[in-house]
């Protein structure tokens, strides 16, 4: 198998007068968890639909696992698992029957289907409830089932559209953990769209940021933070009054200062030694307990990129 799971080449897609994707080019290596980040309406779902051959590009082309998404769409779909915007779980059917259906679709043998149902439902902690109708389950449980369904036929690539959207924190964490452990144990490539930055930061090896149908940047979360995120200093202590904050803001290396509950977050123009800032604080009578150097979170990077694009 090629070491590139997804290759998108200058792909655009129009809906009437709206351009949903605008010359998108992207390569996703095999065996990684790739996060496709972007605000609502950026073109994330359209990209997934195009990759699955559910839509045809207006211009450009894409290959998934070496297959053209237009002329070999059935080959693509046979080798991918998908969890789309809606879980797609048949609520009037049991969990077992939902998985059985997708096993039959993928022409797995009866013994393989039975073994796989047990394996996956056990892994996600739902084996004991396999006979229950999915309608009686929580949304988080249905999402876990949909994740198991996407992986059921052991596809080398799974495409997930906002897999934790709309879930409460506990369910989202559970789905994320299942996703990470299943992806590791199965060794699959995962392409997931999300607008949850912390999610992407936690589970993705590589992220691409899309805005208005165009790729803004791509790289490892750390690389993006280093490239686009500005250095920060975080100081924990007491006595950070307005006078002190004003002095800090007046310094040339400081871009902005935020103070909240005894925690100062100082955004710097470049990575500089924080010692002069600490000296200034101590000299003005503040008490400094902790000093941390850091870079912006992926969320900050994302917001910066969105601002730059405007």
């Amino acid at each position: 198998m090629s070491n590139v799971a997804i290759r998108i080449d200058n792909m655009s897609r129009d809906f009437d007068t709206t351009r949903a994707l605008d010359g998108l080019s992207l390569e996703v290596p095999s065996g990684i968890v790739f996060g496709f980040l972007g605000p609502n309406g950026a073109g994330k779902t359209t990209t997934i639909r195009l990759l699955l051959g559910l839509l045809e590009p207006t211009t450009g082309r894409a290959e998934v696992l070496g297959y053209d998404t237009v002329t070999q769409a059935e080959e693509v779909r046979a080798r991918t698992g998908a969890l789309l915007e809606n879980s797609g779980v048949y609520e009037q059917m049991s969990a077992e029957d939902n998985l059985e259906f997708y096993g039959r679709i993928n022409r797995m043998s009866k013994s393989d289907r039975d073994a796989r149902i047990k394996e996956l439902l056990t892994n996600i902690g739902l084996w004991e409830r396999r006979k229950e109708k999915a309608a009686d389950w929580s949304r988080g449980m249905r999402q876990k089932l949909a994740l198991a369904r996407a992986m059921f036929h052991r596809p080398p690539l799974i495409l997930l559209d906002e897999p934790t959207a709309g879930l409460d924190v506990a369910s989202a964490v559970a789905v994320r953990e299942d996703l990470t452990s299943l992806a590791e144990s199965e060794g699959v490539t995962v392409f997931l769209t999300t607008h949850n930055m912390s999610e992407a930061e936690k589970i993705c090896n590589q992220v691409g940021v899309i805005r208005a149908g165009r790729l803004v940047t791509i790289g490892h979360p750390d690389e993006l933070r280093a490239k686009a995120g500005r250095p920060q200093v975080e100081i924990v202590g007491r006595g950070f009054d307005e006078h002190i904050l004003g002095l800090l803001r007046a310094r040339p290396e400081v871009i902005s200062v935020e103070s909240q509950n005894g925690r100062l977050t100082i955004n710097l123009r470049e990575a500089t030694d924080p010692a002069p800032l600490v000296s200034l604080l101590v000299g003005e009578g503040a008490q400094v307990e902790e000093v941390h150097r850091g870079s912006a979170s992926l969320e900050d990077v994302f917001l910066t990129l969105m601002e730059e694009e405007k």
Partner: protein
Amino acid sequence: MKDDILTVVWKESKALLKVQGSRSRILLVMLTPILLSVVMPLTFDEPTEWTNTVFSMMVAVIVPMMLVGVTIPDSFAGERERNTLETLLASRLPDRAILFGKWSISVLFAWLVTLASLLLGLITVNIKFWGGGILFYSPTVAIGDLLISLLMATTVAGAGVLISLRASNVQSATQTLMMIFLLPLVLFQVVAVFALRPMIEYLENMNGEQLLIIVLLVLLLIDVIVNALALSRFQRAKLILI
């Protein structure tokens, strides 16, 4: 392709009668064959009024129409309404396997219920007019019942697919479909009221076989057109945008 169609049939058979609302609609519709097949034969004075005339063909027309009219929208528009369509389309199933699988289970279900209703009517007539020998439908009526019910089921299924592709939900698809097929029946009744005698005279000049062949040919023509349209319209790229 055959295995894929059977997979869809398996899934549809699991889902049939299980969706809330649809189950009650289908059970309500199931009352129609019982009323037609049991109550109507009981009102006749002669057994041949049921076994040798067009009355049993009412069952062959109405029952498949009503059953397919409920199951097809639920199967197609319902898949979209319940947000399961896109995931199904993202699977490796070919478009035609999805279409034929859903179409077949609805047609088969309706046709079997219709045949069971016709059998029920025959049993009713045999019980009411029992004279030591078993009564059967005349060959023309039997062939007519079998073919008309099958053609009605497939025609309504094709039309149901077309309507469901554009309908926003199951209810609107069902209503539109029923309206389309009940309208000709209502028009026929209106025409019959005002032109009963000329109609009878015209029909009396034809023998039963001739009339049956004409009806079957017309139905077959409509059937082929409607299903060819459904086949050409049922495409992933179009479905995903609706």
